[in-house]
């Protein structure tokens, strides 16, 4: 029992990454995804990879599963029929939402607004009422509650949501309604807002709670089926589900709160990037995961991705802790076009998987980013291990359309497409870095996704983030992240009081109570006491500001007279970093939170030794077009590279799941784990690494300025 398995279900393929805990060796395989029941493909893959590795599937102790069941239910509108009990007078909270229409001016003309996930016709308002201070203004009328539940059940609801006004201040009414519903219909899944998000702002809380109900029946069926299949196959390993915040939880916990899995897949990429950064000696990394239609970007500090409390799934703003992943409609399939204004636009329209870029020869004629890369020679026509030969003539014909519209030569137009899509991704990187007060020049850049390594060097030039790190398996990095995930959950409550009215000891007691809940949860997830970690946070803002920052606090601080001062000091640092100013003004505490973490032993990858002193040799000669010139760019086989190899740009490095481009004036250095680190050739950090030792890396990381204090 010394293997761990990461499983990432994607739209087309499911990736399996098997980790040998004794040797650190990784093994990768893929199976076609089975969208109607993802568990079928998962089971197939478990057996496939065990066979390939020559092990008994029962030697796999832990299976870490990233799932898109919940996400797809939302994006495809195929969730459950949800009934909603709310407060009388607020039946339209989800329908009216925040009343927002998109920009710019007149943006409402083309707005597409989906119906609420709990239909108005299945929403009922209770006469019970809490105040914002948690006092009962109107008591719960249990007869009314029963009548509504009976009626909604009669309409065939598959899940019930209870979200009452001011429940963040007191959940007493919600709790009682839940008890009644469970007593009346034990099989009906009931989700109440105080269990999912006991924080204020009724729209976001109700939406998040309804979202949980909406995906819960599907998730429950899926997880039950999975459990049954594991049992039937007599697999003894434990399966965990990956959460949106990069942690994992048990199947039972996932069935209770599937809303926490909406970003299950992308979180793996962010966790893996953070891990790859740590492995290469760069603890602060930006990462971008470039696929066919879109790119996800994220930021990590000290080996952990940044977590935020709100994210967007389709139209819906969901408040659930999630890795801060931003998505931009820029991918290999993004289509270039020239509108009336004569500008060159790339995306957000995409040629998708069908028909795909023109160069795939599957009927596509629109010029995509991939086609531009073919025209420029960045993607060689014959890819090593590539199942698909690329048709350069079709790519050229497609890009020529844009060139004609722009009045530019073909290759200049192609380079324009390449530059613009990079610029679009750079815009997304800025959202997670500069807009949050972080200087991207103090971060390394990790490239993920099939298309990432083709754009990494160029993107690093834009953002000043060095080195560009190309992991060994950029196409399946999410699964690597899963292997690295800790068990995680959050427990919070809203207080909303200014600090001058708060008692240090009472705050400590409240945090301790949340910590106790967290500990109980970790125990229920069977985490050994020695592997439990509880972190504490206070969400702070200036009195009456609208948005708060989570501030990490240590309980010990609160024993001392200056305890609050230390918290405030940290808050002011964060405020200064984000907004550039502070003020002498009351500070308000919004939420208290305990974050439960169950430590999972870390993945220790094996270091590769050089087997031959020979320099890497290109597999063939090739040229690329760059900045108006055609330059030599030999093609290398990634699998032939060894630790310590240096490859000067321009060069193209091919592997099964990706192609790496090193631009002129840059150099790729292969490290002990066979990652490629791309640096400007003139950068002193790129030198002195011709032999594979760990020392130069340590120096490099010591020289690197820290992005976070």
């Amino acid at each position: 029992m010394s293997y761990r398995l990461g499983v990432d279900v994607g739209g087309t393929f499911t990736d399996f990454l098997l980790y040998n805990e004794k040797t650190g060796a990784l093994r990768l395989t893929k199976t076609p995804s089975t969208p109607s029941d993802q568990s079928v493909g998962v089971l197939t893959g478990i057996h496939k990879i065990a066979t390939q590795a020559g092990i008994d599937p029962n030697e796999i102790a832990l299976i870490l599963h990233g799932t898109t069941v919940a996400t797809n239910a939302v994006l495809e509108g195929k969730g459950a029929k949800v009934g909603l009990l709310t407060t009388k007078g607020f039946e339209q909270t989800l329908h009216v939402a925040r009343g927002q229409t998109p920009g710019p001016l007149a943006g409402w003309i083309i707005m597409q607004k989906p119906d609420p996930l709990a239909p108005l016709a299945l929403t009922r308002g209770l006469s019970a009422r809490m105040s914002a201070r948690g006092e009962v203004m109107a008591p719960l009328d249990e007869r009314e509650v029963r009548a509504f539940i009976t009626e909604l059940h009669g309409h065939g609801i598959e899940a019930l949501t209870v979200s009452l006004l001011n429940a963040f201040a007191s959940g007493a009414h919600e709790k009682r309604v839940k008890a009644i519903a469970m007593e009346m219909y034990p099989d009906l899944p009931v989700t109440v807002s105080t269990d999912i998000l006991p924080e204020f702002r009724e729209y976001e809380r109700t939406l998040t709670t309804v979202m949980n109900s909406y995906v819960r029946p599907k998730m429950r069926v899926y997880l039950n089926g999975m459990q049954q299949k594991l049992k039937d196959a007599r697999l003894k390993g434990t399966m965990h589900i990956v959460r949106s915040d990069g942690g994992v939880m048990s199947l039972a916990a996932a069935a209770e709160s599937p809303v926490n899995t909406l970003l299950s897949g992308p979180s793996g990429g962010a966790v893996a990037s953070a891990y790859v950064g740590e492995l290469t000696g760069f603890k602060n990394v930006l990462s971008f995961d470039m696929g066919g239609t879109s790119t996800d970007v994220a930021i990590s500090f000290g080996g952990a991705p940044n977590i935020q409390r709100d994210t967007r799934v389709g139209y819906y703003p969901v408040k659930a802790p999630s890795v801060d992943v931003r998505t931009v409609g820029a991918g290999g399939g993004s289509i270039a076009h020239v509108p009336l204004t004569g500008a060159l636009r790339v995306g957000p329209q995409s040629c998708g998987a069908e028909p795909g870029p023109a160069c795939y020869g599957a009927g596509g004629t629109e010029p995509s980013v991939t086609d531009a890369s073919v025209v420029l020679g960045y993607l060689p026509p014959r890819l090593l291990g590539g199942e698909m030969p690329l048709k350069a003539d079709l790519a050229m014909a497609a890009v020529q359309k844009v060139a004609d519209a722009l009045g530019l030569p073909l290759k200049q137009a192609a380079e324009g497409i390449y530059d613009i899509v990079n610029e679009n991704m750079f815009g997304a990187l800025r959202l997670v870095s500069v807009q949050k007060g972080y200087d991207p020049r103090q971060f390394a850049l990790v490239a993920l996704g099939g298309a990432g390594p083709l754009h990494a060097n160029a993107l690093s030039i834009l953002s000043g983030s060095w080195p560009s790190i190309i992991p060994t398996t950029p196409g399946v990095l999410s699964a690597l992240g899963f292997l690295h995930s800790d068990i995680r959950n959050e427990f919070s409550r809203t207080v909303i009081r200014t600090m001058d009215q708060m008692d240090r000891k009472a705050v400590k007691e409240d945090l301790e109570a949340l910590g106790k809940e967290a500990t109980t949860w970790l125990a229920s997830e069977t985490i050994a006491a020695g592997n439990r970690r509880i972190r504490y946070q206070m969400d702070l803002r200036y009195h009456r500001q609208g948005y708060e920052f989570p501030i990490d606090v240590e309980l010990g601080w609160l024993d001392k007279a200056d305890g609050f001062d230390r918290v405030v000091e940290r808050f002011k640092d964060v405020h200064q970093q984000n907004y550039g100013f502070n003020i002498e003004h009351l500070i308000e505490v919004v939420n208290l939170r305990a974050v439960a973490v169950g430590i999972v032993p870390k993945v220790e990858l094996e270091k590769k030794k050089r087997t031959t002193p020979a320099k890497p040799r290109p597999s063939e000669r090739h040229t690329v077009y760059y900045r108006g010139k055609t330059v030599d760019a030999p093609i290398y086989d990634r699998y032939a590279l060894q630790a310590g190899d240096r490859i000067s740009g321009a060069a193209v490095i091919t592997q099964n799941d990706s192609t790496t481009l090193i631009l002129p004036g840059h150099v790729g250095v292969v490290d002990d784990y066979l990652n490629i680190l791309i640096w400007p050739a003139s950068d002193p950090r790129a030198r002195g690494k011709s032999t594979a030792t760990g020392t130069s890396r340590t120096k490099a990381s010591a020289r690197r300025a820290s992005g976070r204090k």
Partner: protein
Amino acid sequence: MAKNNVAPKRRAATKASADRRTSPRPAPRARAKAGAVDKITLDIVENALRNARHEMDTVLFRSAMSPVIREQHDGFPMIATPDGRMVVGQFGSYIAGFIKDWPRGIHEGDVFLMSDPYKCKGAISHINDWMVLLPIFYNRQLVGWGSQFGHTIDIGGPVSGSLPTDATTIYGEGTRIPPVKLFAKGQLNEDVLDLILNNSRMPTMNYFDLMAIVAACRTAEKRVVEICERFGTAVYLDACEALLDRTHRAMSALIQRNLPEKKVSFEDYVDDDGRGNGPYKMKLTMWRVADHAHFDWTGTDPQAPGPINFFLNEEMFKMFIGVYLIMVFDPQILFNDGFYPLLHITMPDGSLVQPRFPAALGCRTHALTRLFDVLGGALGHGAPEFSTAAGYGTSPYLLFNGTQENGEFFHLMEISFGGIPGRPFGDGMDAHSWWPLFENIPSEYLESYYPITIEEYGSLMDSGGAGFFRGGNGVHKVYRFEADGEIAIHDDRERSHPWGILSGLPGQSSTKLLVRATGEQVSLPSKISQVKVKKGDRLIYRTAGGGGWKDPLDRPADKVQKDVLGKLVSAEKARSDYGVVLDAKTCAVDESATAALRDKMRAARGAQGTFTFGPVPEAIGVMKSV
């Protein structure tokens, strides 16, 4: 709340930049054609500027304190060329005029503040909007401007909120700030700041909001400097010219494609001026000559004695026109001033849209919104299939202030929404904002911070005009006041109706009903301030619904049924306006009865015009004799 009427201590957000004793070099003259910049760099600069503009918003909304800016997003950014033309942004640039008129030099590190509409040609149109201008320098050369304004919650005057509905001059509204240096060469001018804040009922909040606005402008500064570092100043300035030129060319084509050579006119009304005079007609006539377009407000009523006058900034109006025309064709374009020479605006002096100093301006939001109804109607003459109906037609406010039992002063200003018009793309949204990116204030926020209970909040059944795509319902909100105080109401479309288009029906008008704790009911007009309320009084606040788009008799019956089940439309209205007959108990559609009723209704009604207006409001006050 406790600290809001105490002057704040400040830790100034001073800029790190050195106090250099330099004057700006003269702004480079605009060139007709861009030279040094290639097409791809141009698109990259465009992208960088767009990012900067959004980043300005993010900084402002996240760090401001008043809910009007922070929760509701009443604030607007701009980045302009050295000579003041907007390259990206959302309002009319006054910078060119400012450069010409400002007598005391423009230096690196200066930040200018102003709030007087009459001192900036209406670039901001009431004194609540505080506008900051920040000259951007790179290598000691003026390379552009960052500007941002936001609605501050109180700037003095007789009425809390500084929007008295009965003001007759701008002197009676609050404190006007002429252009002043808030920072001079990087030094905060504390004397000016104290003078301004001393006039506000909410100095801390205003200070916070002002610093947030400055921080947003500093963001623009940082980004523009970065672009100059990356590409060089000459390339950046050339790129700005090319971006302006790009909009110019696109608009030239759009004008020829979409605007008629024959004159077309459209007119609509603002109900009243808050002082018993009304209605006020806004009339717009439009035509083109080659690729030049003319927009003429002749026929618009004279300025009002009350504060509803909208001092319309010519550049801003041009931008509004451009936005309507261009969005369909290249929604990603960086919208800017480049096409302004193609548009020719006539605004009669002394009219509602060009009032003479010192006319009161505080409540200009109604005319500002009606402008869009009139503009949409005028453009819609040529292509009604692609046009929308009219919406709730203003930005309705509620203000509530007073003193709590513990002696704390409080002041709430909330912007409300209403029915979005029926549109070619679908139903108008219910109780949504027509102005982009505004958000409502969560009821839990209101109840946490103010002595107020929200008893009901949603959209008002049946208030949207019927249509194939129906108009959105207006807002229905019931407040219970938990402390004695004063309220003010700002709304319109109380006497006029949002019109429907192509057989779509008009939306329902707005109402305000004060229900005293004693049971007495007082119907309040749409514009009133300083109404005393007592603890326990309730206010039923309803805004107008949107007009419908195309024939309601063609709306699929199951969509009508769904609205009835969701309590957005009543069964009665389903029958009377849509001709849909539903079973009283099961709500099932009676197909044959529906078909028969719809046939009968079609036969009974006469020919349909392009627009369906409600009745024109009866003239009152001074407007009787106009």
